[in-house]
């Protein structure tokens, strides 16, 4: 069975919460992701830029430890590009094949977070299991074949990968960040957070 691993890096741009404990987080951000597969074609791969929108719930278990659950919608995938010469020296035919894999996932993480007070906020490190539900999965490809004297012939194709994918997937989510408890509003309980996160 073909196995696709998705490795990514996400930067959540903002997150706001309205309550001290428990806390509601609403966030959004960008991510970069790529896939590795056992039968990958030889092509130049580049990470695909995606986005995430998240809703989270945090409860402090102790001064340093908190438990986070939530849900997020995330796009993932990768871009590949391959160039091949199909013709001869007298008639060089160049084929540039570009494809983009697009995944849309519903992610449900359950994270344990360790908080280290520092300055006006706290550093935190978190990790935990994450359940993924595949919502959409497709490959878009563009084939540009250039023939001297004829021009460039472009063909596009879209293929649904959903039938070849597992509906649900598990993974580990881990990361670190800094939580700023500033006086951005009058309410001292309101916080702004910036954190990075990686998933495997």
């Amino acid at each position: 069975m073909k196995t696709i691993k998705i490795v990514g890096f996400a930067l959540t741009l903002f997150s706001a919460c309205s309550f001290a404990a428990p806390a509601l987080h609403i966030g959004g951000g960008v991510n970069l992701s790529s896939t590795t597969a056992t039968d990958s074609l030889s092509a130049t791969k580049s990470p695909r830029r995606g986005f995430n929108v998240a809703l989270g719930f945090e409860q402090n278990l102790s001064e340093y430890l908190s438990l986070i659950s939530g849900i997020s919608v995330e796009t993932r995938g990768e871009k590949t590009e391959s160039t091949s010469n199909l013709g001869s020296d007298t008639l060089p035919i160049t084929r540039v094949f570009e494809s983009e894999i697009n995944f849309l996932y519903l992610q449900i993480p359950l994270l344990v977070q360790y908080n280290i007070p520092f300055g006006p906020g706290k550093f935190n490190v978190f990790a935990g299991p994450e359940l993924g539900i595949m919502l959409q999965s497709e490959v878009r490809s563009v084939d540009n074949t250039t023939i001297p004297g004829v021009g460039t012939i472009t063909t596009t194709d879209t293929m649904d990968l959903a039938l070849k994918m597992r509906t649900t997937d598990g993974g580990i989510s881990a990361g670190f960040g800094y939580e700023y408890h500033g006086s951005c509003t009058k309410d001292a309980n309101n916080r702004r957070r910036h954190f990075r996160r990686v998933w495997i």
Partner: protein
Amino acid sequence: MKKKLFVLSCLLTVFSAFEDFAQSQLELVSPDSTLRWRPHGYGHFRAGQVVNGIGVVSTEPRVSEVYTEEAYGGISMEILYKEHLTMHMGVDVKMFFSYPQEINFFVTKYAREDAFLGPTYANFLYEKTRFGDFNLSIGYFDFKYNPDVKNLGEYMFRSATYPAYIITYMDYPVAKLLGAHFRNELCKNSIKQDVLFTTETTFYPTQDWSLSYLLSYNFRNIVEVGAGANLSHLLSVYNDQFDPGLGSLTDPKKSGPNGNQYIDKNGDTLYYTFRGNKVMGRLSFDPKGIIPGADKLFGESDLKCYAEAIVIGTTSYPDTRVGGGQQYSYENWKEKMPVIFGVNLPAYGILDVFNTEFEWWDSKYTNNYYNVYINSSLPNPDKPQDSIFRSPWKWSVFAKKSFNDGHFSVIAQAARDHMRLPSANYQHSPTQEMLVEAGDWWWCFKTSFSF
């Protein structure tokens, strides 16, 4: 004079009830206190979209971005006579939009309303007797045996045997049953047993009577186990005279390629039947009961995990297709056994419920009752379609938040469940569930309000 006093009493009670509406139940009491009248109301508005799914017309095998709406209202009354008898009567109305909208069928092009019977039953309650609490309901009532299920599961009364098919409805994991329900609760309500003698209202052949027994044990709200059996279509109300020589509706005897014959291990030719037995088991675990201080950290429903498995038809008929026939069957019971597991994720009281459920049901047949309702009226599943790649997995993510002491709620759900969209052209109502393949799913939002 008595009549005047009764009216005055009613008016006074209404005013006093409205005064503290949010805290108490609206109630009218007769002067002699033998009758207590409590009105109830419920309504919701729902909107959503099938992002990807199976189409229901041959020209559209796959569909995407099908928008759907629904509005619903119901009024019911509860009348308590003295201390043991309570009567419930209700009427519900649903407004819906058809799918598909048909060019030559104008009623599919605008909103339609269906009015139907709400819970209407009499209930006798005898509490704290020597043998526990006794409860008897007779009429048309809601029944839910698995309190944890939010979407997937609760299939003992939401499924039909032969062919095995399931119905679900968003934010309503409850069965509506017509008949009698007897409940006995023992040991401070930790043991519950239910006996139900019900007549079929949804699954063909309707009006047949089924007998069910369910038993559950709750250990300190930490662990709950339950099991049940259902003898479906046990008593048929149909005789052979309906279609002379071809059996009854419950036990049809049609031969030939389009008949319902099969050959058993002894070489005898027998007939598939709608009669079937269901066996269900369930387990629920709430770790908050063993975590000190968990009640303060977590919401009431948080962390609870549960599972349910049901065999929808314990008998497996061989798939012999006598005479080169088109009537298929199940070769083993695993094809009729959905397994459901779910967990309430921590929402710490910010949400009432934040739930996810999964279902595994490995069958080569799609969840379709076309063959029963439209094609042949025989107890066989539809022929598997080569163009449909059925995924054995279903999933559901459900969140609910209530406001105003529970009178108003907002609900969100994303799922690949057993959803079907309605049509005013009932003959063309989707018999096949829409979310079949991997990648099929829908989302919806709902607001509900009740008093």
